[in-house]
């Protein structure tokens, strides 16, 4: 779904959802330097609500957050017909979690701790 606002301003809008402040601050800084607009959600419920507005070109979501899990958010969005590329972040190295995330609709999966240049490259690729 193309974001009309980003078309107007030329900037892509990205939703970053993570309950760890260091991760959100790092991603916000890196994405803003790279020329994106960023909105942050500190918990699952807020991430889900922001996603339903349809204002974002991509979302980077942590799997484990207070409120809703990342996979639950994806399932709800899919159920409501929200078609937005989502990159899942998770600190859990478990095949079931990876497969569950991709099956729920995530287009990519990144383990935490992550390499920032790699994550940025994946974001660029999935936005292009």
């Amino acid at each position, binding site marked *: 779904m193309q974001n009309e606002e980003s078309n107007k301003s030329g900037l892509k809008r990205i939703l970053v959802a993570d309950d760890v402040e*260091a991760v959100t601050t790092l991603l916000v800084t890196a994405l803003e330097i790279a020329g994106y607009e960023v909105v942050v959600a500190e918990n699952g419920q807020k991430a889900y609500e922001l996603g339903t507005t349809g204002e974002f070109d991509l979302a980077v979501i942590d799997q484990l957050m207070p409120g809703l899990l990342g996979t639950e958010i994806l399932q709800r969005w899919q159920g409501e017909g929200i078609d937005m590329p989502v990159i899942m972040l998770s600190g859990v190295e478990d095949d079931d979690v990876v497969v569950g995330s991709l099956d729920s609709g995530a287009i990519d999966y990144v383990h935490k701790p992550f390499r920032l240049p790699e994550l940025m490259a994946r974001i660029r690729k999935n936005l292009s």
Partner: protein
Amino acid sequence: MAAGTVMFAVSVLLLFAVVVFKWANGRRLAARQKRRVTYLKLLSQHVAAPGSTAEISIKEADDDAFIDALIDIRHALSSSSIDSLDGVIDRSGLIRHQAKRLRSRFPLGRRLRAVVSLAEIGDPGAARILMHHLKDRVPEIRVQSARGLARMRHTAAIDVILDRFHDETRWVQTRFAETLALFGRDAVWPLIAWIRVNHNYQGDGGVTEIIRILGIIGDSEVGPALAELLYTAEDPEVRIAIIETLGIIGGPLALRPLRRMIQSADWRIRAKAATAFSKIGDPSINPILREGLGDQSWWMRRNSAAALASLPGGIDLLYEAIGAPDQFTRDAAAEALADCGELIAARDRLESGKSDPRDAQLISYMHIPDPVTS
């Protein structure tokens, strides 16, 4: 009356002091949190745009909020992404500052915070100071120094930690052992060498802790070297630790020494060997485990039955054992079949009319009424 008044006045003063203290502390924490957020943004700029000119001065090195932010950023990034933080750490003189705090004699709280900061940051520049404090007079500082050195994979610390093992309390030995696991495969052969020298050490030398760390590290190459020690170890606790570890890393090469252990006069060693067999997963051991069902020790019977339940072909042997003349054997086999879900499966098969004779035999042995005929 006067005493009562004085007591009342003192209580009011104390209450007032507590309220003021809580208010002041709350403000201090809020200010620290605010500074931490500012530092997170500053450090993020340095990571996202290496070569950033955002200034970090030497006074930040003294601020605990800066250290908290630095540690949080380091935890968020993998090791290959934190090179840009090394420059920040150098420019702020943080290592030097924390080392100075660590070297001071008092207060202990500040020293502990300094060593934890150095351990969490994991910068190789702190290796020298942490090596020195492996011999600190305070046990927690020794433990945190070891942890920091393990996080930065400073392998020179392995031998120093091992040398100190016998002189430490049980608590410190346990923490040191956990730290050695963080070194991963780099620690394996130093640990084997140490175990070879110390496996018959008299007294509480922490040998069993070190042996179990090999299981946590999980390098199967040391299986044969560890298995040799089964023939020379005298202490049953050491043998048990070796057997448990061989179950994890031993592989097929461990089968021969473990076969000897299953003949041991000590029931604990026999029982542990049975469990180790199930972890190795080689069905060639099934006949020996079948014999173990008739062992005089309940633990040996139980572990043998549990091992058979997990090995290929073992379930068939357990069903056969339900018809054994010896009641202990029958009980061990039936309980293991029940524990692994065979009893429920047998009832289901019976109810659906797809059972075979062994299902009825198991159910009747466990004294559950036949659901079809009842």
